[in-house]
């Protein structure tokens, strides 16, 4: 048995069932070992698709996603998907072929130092120079990927190691995942003291809730304490969209109710979130009156951008569980009346500033379409690309759980959506998986339509086509004096014809009155299908907090116009920026 065959058996012993990849010269022994093995390999059409598919697989399931590529360009094509996994804490093991060890450092054909290239974007990496190191490296790679704050681990595998004799190696034994550290009692007491004193508390929940398997504990905490809650992009679903205390997403494109609550709060209870700049707006003016209780597994995040008066480092689930009853006991305490008034204010704003779906005109209003689709497919897993459509999904989709929402949050990688949807569908064949994309993002990994077709994956694609790079265009409109620089995509190809060429059926809608039928037809379609949606290029994402402004300074000309019953202003919206 050679090293490659040993590795394939080890992957199976680790519980890996599916891996995503693309073969090539330096990884050929591994692919030879795969042939006839118990592992299922999904052949993508570009290595970036493999990395994003493994990423989507991992996000949807919480399991380790595995992808494989050859050396050189195969490895470098994985880089964006690895970076995305690092920034969004996605557990992945990435296996790259490498030229044989005697050739390393000689500029050999397809030799690339992927170990060095990826050092800043992996949780850890191994360059495996000896076949004897296989057992320890494979066990450690999976342990590291899964343990604590998850992340990607790279194994660079020279060809001579793959073909080296491994018959003397012991069978692989998976390593135990590290137990999460418990929060310290003193930090819990400090948190409780602050929470009990607060009159205007807000819970600010992030992606760490799902990563820490703490969704149930989080919901129990919120329900027991009755504290109004805002969520980050990656926290969406931690509380169901319709929950009475869910004020929505905070930040640049957050809801007005969420942003105002945070800005006026006297205590932020931060749960698995990291004060990302898209969430905080102008950091120096973020929640200016609030003290902070920060709960996070990763000590690096506490105090990194905002001082925490109470830092609770450790297992979020245990932290929330420990705090729930003591905090609930203060519900009717000395600040009970103030808290009830605060909660009522927040909930009143939720009603007052609820999204409106009564946009005038005959063209398709994307927010209304997405809201309706989420009602028609309430259990769907949604994989987004990046841009305006991504924010519309975040604002208008009714998420019930966080793992329903696959989005490239921190990296913001266009091209993520379709391969991530493939990974999610492979992981859960019976699930309803929807990919929401834009005309810019979609063409970045359009080749993966071939993967959809090859494996007969019933992913439904909603392609919102405004014939522009919409988010960049919106910023050029608002902040660059409408100098539209390289955002015009009016020469887009015929997306329906493209889908058809790949053997994927396509539908089209361009009128609001036809949206319901189009969505019904899309969901009823057998196998993969694409709904091409023509939308107005002038449609923008609102609200928007301009750069270097605080989150109370939201622009929302559509709402302002509707409120004053006047046409939407088309003049320079910067003039509407509050002082």
């Amino acid at each position: 048995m050679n090293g490659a065959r040993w590795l394939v058996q080890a992957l199976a012993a680790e519980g890996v069932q599916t891996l995503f990849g693309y073969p090539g010269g330096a990884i050929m022994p591994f692919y030879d070992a795969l042939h006839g093995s118990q592992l299922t390999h999904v052949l993508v059409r570009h290595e970036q698709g493999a990395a994003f598919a493994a990423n989507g697989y991992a996000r949807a399931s919480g399991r380790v996603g595995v992808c494989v590529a050859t050396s050189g360009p195969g490895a470098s094509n994985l880089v964006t998907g690895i970076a995305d996994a690092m920034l969004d804490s996605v557990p992945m093991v990435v296996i790259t072929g490498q030229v044989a060890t005697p050739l390393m450092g000689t500029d050999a054909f397809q030799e690339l130092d992927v170990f060095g290239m990826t050092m800043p974007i992996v949780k850890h990496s191994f360059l495996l120079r000896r076949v004897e190191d296989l057992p320890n490296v494979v066990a450690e790679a999976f342990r590291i990927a899964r343990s604590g704050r998850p992340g990607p681990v790279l194994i660079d595998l020279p060809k001579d190691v793959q073909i080296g004799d491994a018959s003397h190696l012991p069978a692989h034994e998976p390593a135990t995942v590290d137990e999460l550290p418990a929060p310290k009692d003193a930090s819990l007491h400090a948190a409780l003291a602050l929470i009990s004193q607060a009159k205007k508390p807000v819970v600010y929940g992030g992606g760490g809730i799902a990563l820490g398997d703490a969704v149930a504990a989080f919901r129990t905490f919120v329900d027991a304490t009755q504290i109004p809650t805002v969520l980050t992009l990656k926290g969406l679903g931690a509380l169901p969209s319709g929950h009475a205390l869910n004020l929505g997403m905070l930040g640049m494109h957050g809801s007005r109710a969420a942003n105002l609550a945070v800005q006026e709060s006297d205590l932020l209870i931060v749960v698995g979130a990291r004060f990302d700049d898209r969430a905080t707006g102008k950091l120096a003016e973020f929640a200016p009156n609030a003290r902070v209780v920060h709960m996070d597994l990763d000590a690096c995040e506490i105090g990194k951008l905002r001082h925490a008066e109470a830092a609770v480092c450790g297992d979020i689930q245990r932290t929330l569980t420990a705090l729930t009853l003591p905090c609930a006991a203060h519900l009717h305490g000395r600040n009970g009346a103030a808290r009830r008034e605060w909660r009522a204010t927040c909930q009143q704003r939720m009603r007052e500033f609820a999204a409106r779906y009564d946009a005038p005109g005959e063209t398709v209003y994307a927010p209304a379409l997405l809201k309706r689709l989420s009602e028609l497919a309430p259990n769907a897993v949604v994989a987004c690309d990046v841009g305006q459509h991504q924010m519309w999904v975040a604002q208008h989709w009714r998420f019930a759980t966080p793992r329903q929402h696959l989005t490239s949050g921190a990296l913001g990688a266009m091209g993520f959506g379709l391969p991530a949807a493939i990974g999610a569908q492979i992981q859960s064949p019976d699930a309803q998986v929807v990919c929401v994309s834009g005309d810019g993002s979609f063409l970045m990994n359009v080749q993966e339509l071939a993967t959809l077709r090859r494996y007969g994956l019933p992913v439904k694609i909603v392609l919102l086509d405004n014939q522009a790079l919409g988010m960049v265009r919106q910023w050029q409109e608002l902040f660059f004096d409408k100098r539209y620089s390289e955002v015009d995509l009016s020469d887009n190809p015929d997306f329906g014809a493209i889908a058809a060429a790949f053997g994927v059926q396509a539908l089209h809608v361009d009128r609001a009155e036809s949206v319901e039928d189009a969505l019904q037809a899309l969901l009823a379609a057998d196998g993969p299908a694409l709904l091409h949606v023509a939308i107005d290029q002038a449609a923008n994402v609102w609200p928007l907090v301009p750069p270097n402004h605080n989150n109370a300074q939201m622009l929302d000309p559509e709402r302002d116009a509707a409120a004053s019953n006047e046409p939407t202003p088309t003049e320079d919206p910067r003039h509407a920026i509050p002082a």
Partner: protein
Amino acid sequence: MRYQLDLTLRQAEGALSRVLGAAERRGFRPLSVDGEAQADGDRWYLRLTVEGERDEANLQHQLEKLYDCLAVEVSPCR
């Protein structure tokens, strides 16, 4: 501010690059590096002097997260 970092690292491929890279990416400029590998062991002992305006506690946490970093002590340079 200048800080002295006393690190114990695994003698693993890439360990030195990871530490120096992490310090630089987190806003600290390396000023001096001194260290040696254990002759017959599996450790690197490294003393690194860096300069930066950011919170040194966060740098310490970032370095502690590195798999190859077994221990790190950060102290201000006098």
